[in-house]
Every structure is written in C-alpha cells, then in structure tokens.
C-alpha cells in the first residue's frame, strides 16, 4: 500500500515554442488506501496525470513519488501498479485465466497460493467464477471490464489506476459495477486513483477527488466539500448544476454583507473582507418559492419535466438562471434563498 505524491508536475508535448501543455504544475497527494478520483472535462489532463503516475509518460518537470521514493528512473513494469484502461486492453489471444494470470509471471502470487489459485480467487472476487477458459471476445463489455480489473489486481499492486473504466458501458450497468468496485476496493484497501469525466460518478465513488481543468488542479477535497463549497467558478459550474452570479458589496456586518446583483440587493454570508466584487453560487434546489429572504422574480423560458422535479430555465437581471421546482410554472415566478445556502467563491 502506498502514499502517492505528485509535486510540481508539468508535461509539455512538442517543442518549447510550438508544443502544447498537458499539465501545469500539478500537486497531488493520495493517501494510503484512499479512493481518489481525478475528474474533469476531456482534455483537462487527467489521463496524462494517470499515465505519468503509471510511468508511461515522463513529466517535463516535477516529481512523482511512491512512499517518498522518487519514480523518475523507474520503468512502468517496476512500479507495482495495476492499470485498467478505458478499452480494457485485454489480450485477445489469451484466455480469461491467462489474462488474469499474466502478471503473476513477473510477480509471485501471495504466499501460500499457486498461480491457478490466485487466478481463481480473483475471478471469484469479480463474480466471474468458471469463466477462466473463455476468450475475452466471448464476454460482454461489463464482464471484460471485470476481467481487466481482476488482471490488474492479481499481482497485488501497491497502487490501482483506473482510466475511465466504465465509460464504454451503459448507465445501469455502470452503477452496479461502481458498487462492486467500491466494495472490492474497500475490501482490499488498495490505494486507488480513478479517472472519470462524469462528475456524478466522481461524487458517488470517491473518498476525495481532484477537479481538473486545462492541465491544472482546481480543487482537491471530499465530495461533500467539493459540492457544497466549490472554490472556483469552474468547480462550481462543473460539479452538479449551479447558478453562479457576480455582485458588488454594498455594506458589511462581520462576514455578512449586502451585495447587489444588477438591480437586486441580496444578503450573503462568508464574504471575504478583501474585495468589493464577489462571485457566489446558489444551487437550483436551494432556490425556493417559499423562502422569505433574498427574493427576486425570474422570467421563465422553458421547463423540463423530470419526474420528481421540474427543471426550469429562465432569466434574472439579464443572466441565465436554473430553478428546480415541483410543478411546471405558469408565468414568472418569485424565488428566494437562505443566505447560508449560497456559497461565495474564492476567486471572482
């Protein structure tokens, strides 16, 4: 089991002048046994980060270390990592059992076990008992994914790296595999770095997560903190649906402040002393028709019926706003929010 640390990791492709930058000064610490997720839109650098950890990419600057050991000169095959790729990378010319057992040629199975026993154990762990003799192409996508997981786990890696392992599967299957994965991870206690572009998945599955954008880490925190207290506008807008507004501070009272947005004056908490301009976010679910503070009128444009709730899109002070109502509104609606439900961002 391993502590993973990235310090000042940057990655540039191509020449100094004409290349592209995939990672800018990434600092991350993943604790022993933690389920850690990198989430961000495609092209944000999360896969490059994972490939750098696995040793398939050399960082241009910065260091990757496992338990304090710098990994710069260590090739992938000597890092004791298990990797599951988006496309699984199963070996089509080997049976399922041969796939799972492949890594045991290079690292001995756990003491007291033969290779065959270890393979059988892992197939059982991923609910594929008795499938060992099949060929990978005889399996469904979900089964292939589990073979890839079993194969990565067989040599007891110090670190498990999962690169969007579920993105090729349909939503229902993804959820059940997700539960299976968290169960296996907590049973084995293996330090895990998981990559996804799906923010809901990231929130559901992780002990902690890092939100990445444009090669940089925007915020590292627990799912609850990321959701409730996003630090940047990017995190606020990327994780869940959110309304982000800019306002000007009129008056202060401790950390309470009067803030104007357009022609509306609102009361917010947690406003820092330093600035007169603030950005804050209010989740659609916290904008309620019955709240008695911070009330304003929204011009409705469209509504989507979503069963339990109705997602409504409208305009307020010339800015788009999303509401979550219980019924399709007729005409404009007035909503309000509790000052404690709004969250002021660190940066404007």
């Amino acid at each position, binding site marked *: 089991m391993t502590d993973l640390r990235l310090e000042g990791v940057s990655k540039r492709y191509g020449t100094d002048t004409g290349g592209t930058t995939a990672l800018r000064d990434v600092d991350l610490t993943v604790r022993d046994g933690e389920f850690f997720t990198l989430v961000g839109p495609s092209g944000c650098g999360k896969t490059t980060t994972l490939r750098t950890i696995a040793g*398939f990419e050399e960082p241009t600057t910065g260091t990757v270390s496992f338990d304090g050991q710098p990994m710069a000169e260590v090739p992938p095959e000597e890092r004791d990592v*298990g990797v599951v790729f988006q496309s699984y990378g199963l070996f089509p010319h080997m049976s399922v059992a041969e796939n799972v057992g492949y890594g045991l040629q290079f690292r001995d199975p756990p003491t007291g076990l033969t290779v065959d026993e270890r393979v059988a154990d892992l197939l059982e762990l991923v609910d594929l008992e008795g499938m060992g003799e099949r060929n990978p192409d005889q399996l469904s996508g979900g089964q292939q994914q589990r073979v*890839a997981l079993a194969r990565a786990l067989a040599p007891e890696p110090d670190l498990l790296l999962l690169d969007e392992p579920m993105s090729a599967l349909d939503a229902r299957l993804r959820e059940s595999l997700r539960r299976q994965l968290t169960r296996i991870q907590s049973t084995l206690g293996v330090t895990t770095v998981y990559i996804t572009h799906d923010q809901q998945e990231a929130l559901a599955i992780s002990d902690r997560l890092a939100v990445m954008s444009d090669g940089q880490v925007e915020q590292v925190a627990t799912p609850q903190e990321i959701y409730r207290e996003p630090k940047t506008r990017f995190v606020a807008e990327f994780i869940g649906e959110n309304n982000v507004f800019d306002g000007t501070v009129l008056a202060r009272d401790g950390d309470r402040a009067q803030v104007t947005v357009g022609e509306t004056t609102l009361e917010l908490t947690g406003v820092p002393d330093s600035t007169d301009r603030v950005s804050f976010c209010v989740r659609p679910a916290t904008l309620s028709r019955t709240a008695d503070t911070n009330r304003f009128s929204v011009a409705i444009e469209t509504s989507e019926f979503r069963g339990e709730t109705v997602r409504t899109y409208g305009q307020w002070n010339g800015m788009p706003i999303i509401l979550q109502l219980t019924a399709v509104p007729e005409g404009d609606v007035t909503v309000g929010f509790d000052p404690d439900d709004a969250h002021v961002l660190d940066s404007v």
Partner: protein
Amino acid sequence: MSLSDRVTVDRSRLSAWLERHALQLTALVTAAILVVMLYVPVGVVFVNAVLEEGGLTLGHFADVLTDPFYFGAVADVFADPLAIGTHLGSLAAWLGAVSITLSLEYPLPGIGLPVPWLAVETPGVRTGLFGFTAYQAALSTVASVALGLPAAYVLANYEFYGRRTLRSLTILPFVLPGIMVAVGFYAMFGRGGTLNSILGVVGFGPFAFIETYPLAIVILAHAFYNAPLVARLTVAAWESVDVRTVETARSLGASKRRAFRDVVVPQLAPAVLTGALLTFIFTFMTFPIVLALGGLQLATVEVWIYDRIQRLEYAEAATLAILETILSLGLTYAYLRYESAQAGFSQAASRPAREPLYPDFRTALSPRRLAIFAYGIIALVVFVGPMVSLVIGSVTDGSGLTLRNYAFLLERQLEGASFQTLPLPAIRNSLLFGAATLVIAVPMGVVLSVLTVRAGRSGTVIDTLGMLPLAVSGVVFGIGLLQGLVFGISLPGGWRLQVTGAIAIVIAHAVAAYPFVTRNVSPLLANLDPAMVESARALGASRLRALLDIELPLVANGIVAGAAFAFAISIGEFSSTVILASGSESYTMPVAVERYLGRRSGPAIAMGTLLLIVTAASFVVIDRVGGRSEL
C-alpha cells in the same frame, strides 16, 4: 559480497540492460544493414554519375540531358534553356502542323472488320528515350485503369460464386515474376502461340502479333500486372462507402445517378488516382516485360541502362539510373504525400448489400449483365489467357502434345556444359536465395514496422526511408550493388568491403522484399490497442517481453503473409539478379527463362511453367493466412 555474487549481479544487470535496449540495438543493426545494403549501393551509383577521372563533374548529366536520343525535343531546351523565343516558336510550329482525321481502318490484319479510327497526325516529334518511357507508362496506366475499374465495379457491387477468391486473387500479379508473365504473353501471342492456334482452326493466320504490335502487347502485359492493383484499391474504397451517405443524398433529392456522382465518385477517386499513380511508377520502371517482348526496339530507360551495363559503359548507365531514380522518387513522393492526405479507408458502418450477379435467366440478359459478361470474357483472355498459354505452350509444339520442351531441360541438365545455363542449379538457387531472403527480410521488415509504429510522427520519416526500395528500380539497384559491393569499396586502413555472387543477389532480394513484410505487418501493428502493451508493462513485463508476448503473436498473420511475399518476390526477382548473375553460376529461374528465350521459346516456356508452379505454391500460403497488403 563474494566475487561470484558480484559476477551474477553484473550479469543480471547486463541482461536487464540488454533487454531494455534490445529494440534500440536491433534498430541499430537494421539501420546498419540498410546503409550497407541499400544506401551505399544507391549512393555509389550517384557518385559514379558525378565523378570523372577522380574529379567532380556534371558533364554526364549535361551529355544525357542535351542528347535528343534521351530527351527528344526537350533536349534543345535543356541545351539552351534561355532561348525561350526559339522554343516557343518551334512549339507553335509543331502545334500548327497537328492534324486530326477520322477514317475507317482495318486494324486486324487479314480480317475485313472496319473500325472508325480517330487519327491524330503529329509531325514526328522526337520523344527520346525518357519521353517514350513516359509515353508507354501513360498508355499502360490508361489501359490498367480501363481494365481495372469494371472489375472493381463488379467485385464491389455483385455477389457471385467465387467473388471472395477473385478478390483475393487480385494480389496475385504482385507475386508473379515479370519474366514469366512476358513468356506467358509470348506463349499466347507468339507466332506459334495459343491465339494463333485458335485462329488457325478457323483458317486464319498465323499472325506475327508481337512483331507487328510490340507496344500493344507490352501495354497489355502491363495491364495484366496493374489492372488488378487498380481494381484492388478501388474495391477497398468502394466497400468502405457508407451506404447511408448515398441514402442521405437520395432523400435530399438526388437521383440515383446524381447521388453516385456526388457521393460515391469522390470517395472512389482517391483510390483510383492512387492506383493510377502507382501503375505509372511501376510501368515507368518496367524492365523484364519490355526486355522480353520488345527488346531494344522498344527500349525503355531501364532496358537501355541494362544494355549500357552489358557494354560496360557504367558511367552512362549510372547517369541514366540517377535521372530515372530522381523521376521515380519524385513520383513516389507525390504518391506518399497524396496517400497521407487521404484519411485511411475505414470500414463502413453499413455496407451496401451486393446484388446477385445472375439471379435468374431474365436478368442475365439485361444490357448491364451482358456488358459484365463481355467484360468477363475480356478479363479471362487478358488475365487467364497468358498463364494457361504458358502451361499449354510447355506441353505442345506446332503439331500437338509433346514433352520435348521438358526433355530439352532434362537433357540440358544431364549433358549441358558448365558454362551453359542448367535448369537444376537455377531451381536450386531460386529456392536457396528465397530461403535466405526470408531469413534477412522478415526480421528487417518487422523491426522497421515496430519502429515506424512506435516512433509516431517521426515514424513517417523512417517509413519513407525504409520504403526507398519501392521507388528504386531493380536495375538501378543492381548496378549499385555491382559497382559498390561486388567491385568492392575501399575502407580506411587497407580494408575492403566486398560482397559477391550469391550473397550480393540475396542482399538484392532481401532489400526488394522487406518492404512487403513491413507493409503487411505495420497496419496490423498500428491497429493494436496501445492499452494492451501498457497493461502488460504495468503487470511487470519489460518492453521486449510485451513485444514478444502481446504484439508479435497478434500480428503473426501479417508476418507469415509478409514472409510469403518476400519469398515470392525473391523467386521472381529478375532485374538486379540478371545484372549480378551475369557470368556467374548464381543464376535463378527467371534469369534462366530469359536466357532460354534467346534461342527457342519452347524451353523458356517450360522453364516459365516450373516458375509458375513454385510461385503458385507461395501464393497459396499468402491466401491461406489471409494476407493483406497495403499496396
């Protein structure tokens, strides 16, 4: 730590180092082999073309470029490029003298079949050797496209018994030795050939087709080679046309014909153009076919270079070789640029269903089906005729069945003098050289594939450098080896690099063959999911181990197919072998065929048939393992 421990540690460290750098090491070895076997010989030709009595000179080039024998009317321009007025004047005078007439002609000798004949009378312009070579290449390209496109149409759009076999047979010409095809055409169109035998039955002939229309026969032989190539490339493009794009065009209001023109044709055009360009390159560098069917009377640049070498005029041969290579490299570069500009043919998500070719008797009589039938007859005559004629010709003479031709071979083997060309050594040499070619060409080809695919963007450079043999003709390469390795190169310190006889021939064959290995392996290798190798490495396999465990087993089919190609190329190689084997006992079957052809055609045809059998055997291997070539 004891000494033995230390030695063990050192040894394991050394083997780890070797394993980690195995790829770089093999790459270095391959590069060294390529330099010695490919770049040095070609470089020697170049150096010889610009050296005279120890000094640098462009005199040879000037001599050739300004000689109307080589460059015809253009030679004047090269001689005095600044006299633009004079050149324009002579061009205008020439254009003014062109006349176009339409008349009825009787093209078949002795048959009163009138054909409307569009004649373009041009006042005799001297095209020169290069002009003529380009002219016959252009005609051959037109003929190949004309013969290849209908085949592509039928193969891509109709379902019939044997379609898949026929489709895979389009690769066959690539492995057929040129000299054998030439002899096949000889057996068909010669004075005592099958065509004259058939015509004789109905009381015509015999006609001297080859003597009367040598150019037409040469062009037909070129079409035999290249029409299947055009067809192959076009079928691949046609099969990858997504039928939904046609359906979308139809639903937007395009007629069937219009949808074909707007949607299908633009997707086929690149393939047809690629085929045409490759055909032009190949026929520009044509050698055995012209040598055997046309001789010096129809000399192309290659044939002339060979003739210069026979007369030991190496400087002139080298100059011509360089000029030809510059032209063909230019064309190949154009081809590569064009090819890379095209997105690779992806497998269509939904293919059009193929119509049955002959669903019922009624449809079979529709004009379209009749046209296809007529094309089938022509294709049968052009493609099957020469090969069947070869076999028939080997067991017949003017009067009937005979084994005399084989008896001649046997007799020559038993009683021939040692300076004569004996059949058994030829067969033995061919098989031996073929096997030796495999041993060199397969590892080289595979290593180049691995490097090309691995290197990413710089892979294109490696690919292009490695593909040079495709653009350098066998004759040019032959003189390169002759002047470089066979005559020997002085190295510093009194050493001498000299390679002769059989080894030089094997080198030539290996260099001609390895691109086919690379071309067969690279696409398979490039299609492998990189996640497989990376998974293997994360599981603890070294890079080399991952190559051996994962990549090589998965591209085994491509390697076997490439090996079969390499063997077939070696068996059929004529151009450089005939140069390197002259005056030695290292002659191969194709060389023997050509030598026998000089006297009577019967023994050559019998020898050609034996060559056909050996070549067919290697084709069976290619087909069995489902080889695919990018060419």
